[in-house]
């Protein structure tokens, strides 16, 4: 049995540490906010200029001047701060954000990441993704292991335009947890009931296994 989106988010939340400043991307990464362990303080950054992002507002609290990077209305948590775009990316580029959790279209065995455009499809732009992956201390990709039609997303080399090179540290998919090790993908954990063969079939690169799995 592969992990559900919520199980993937819960697994990603195990990467959080007390006191972390974290940027969550759009999609499954957003769900991680629901799994922050109680008693742990994790401050969420939104790159449009907000530290201390809270949940969506109640209808009566909606404020057009308070949105997240996905342009959704949000709230402050106590101790929040707002700042300009240059300050926001100064903290990103300057290595002050502990962890970014992002979605991806492709990840290569060298940690290259593609998540901003598909040639021939709608071009939307990279937003802050290039700055985030090159600036944040640790980059965690949270994505389905394959495309909806079963195509590999974990590859020897990315075929899509890159967001950054050698930037990904760890990938959590519905099948497993992999690290980008010097020799390529290293499987750290398998989802409950998932076999090595399943992961190997769904991956277009060679895999090694951590000691715990040997």
């Amino acid at each position: 049995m592969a992990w559900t989106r919520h199980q993937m988010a819960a697994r990603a939340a195990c990467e959080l540490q007390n006191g972390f400043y974290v940027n969550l991307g759009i999609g499954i990464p957003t769900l991680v906010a629901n799994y922050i362990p109680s008693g742990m303080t994790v401050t969420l950054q939104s790159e449009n200029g907000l530290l201390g992002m809270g949940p969506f507002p109640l209808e009566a609290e909606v404020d057009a001047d308070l949105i997240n990077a996905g342009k959704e209305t949000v709230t402050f948590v106590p101790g929040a701060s707002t700042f300009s775009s240059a300050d926001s990316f100064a903290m990103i580029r300057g290595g002050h954000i502990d962890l970014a959790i992002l979605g991806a279209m492709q990840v290569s065995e060298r940690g290259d990441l593609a998540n901003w455009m598909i040639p021939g499809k709608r071009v939307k732009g990279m937003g802050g993704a290039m700055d985030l992956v090159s600036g944040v201390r640790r980059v965690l990709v949270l994505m389905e292991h394959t495309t909806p039609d079963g195509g590999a997303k974990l590859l020897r080399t990315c075929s899509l335009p890159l967001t950054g090179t050698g930037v990904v540290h760890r990938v959590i998919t519905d099948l497993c947890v992999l690290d980008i090790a010097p020799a390529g993908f290293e499987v750290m954990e398998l989802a409950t009931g998932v076999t090595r063969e399943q992961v190997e079939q769904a991956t277009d690169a060679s895999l090694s296994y951590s000691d715990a799995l040997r």
Partner: protein
Amino acid sequence: MGEARTEDRPVLTKLWPDARTALKGIVRDGMLLAIGGFGLCGIPEALILALRDTGARNLTIASNNAGVDDWGIGLLLKTRQVTKMISSYVGENLEFERQYLAGELEVEFCPQGTLAERMRAGGAGIPGFYTRSGVGTVIAEGKEHKEFDGVTYILERGIQADVALVKAWKADLHGNLIYRRTARNFNPHAAACGKITVAEAEIVVQPGELDPDEIHTPGIYVHRLVHHPHPEKRIEKRTTREE
């Protein structure tokens, strides 16, 4: 504000009667404009409408986004006044996509943090800076690469705009600006990089009424000011939770 001096002297005022008159004589065809805002949050609504009404054409606009089809910078695309956008994300605008795919509109995609820093640098007299953002991607093509301490960076240029349009929450007559919540975003940098900067504000007060410690953009960056008390503030994605 007990420390402010109050002797008689003429009050410097940058306030113009409305957005249309504030843009008179300073906007021309072919100009580069910097416009504040993130999505539709913190955009200078009145000034964008006034810019449309100047009829100026062949404009290049540096702005993080391009509005939506019927609001914000989208209004200027509809009237074909824009020939080039410098932006990081334009996904919310179908007219933009149509003109871009038809080759009628040029787009310079720029990573969001790089765009903010290009405006900040341009306003600070810094012609270029090195960043890791975009190294190894199409963004780096044709740009100078340089290694510092074993890490590769690319050279990005500062932006100096002919005219900048920004949105503040509060302003005083000297053009000191305070922004609100995440409506600050690119506005301070757009303001700083404009050779002529025009600001619109919801609240305009006398000099001395704003706490000097709380000013985000000092008035030196602002040349003209417009009072726009009731902006629409459209919300792109209204998301709420239940009690």
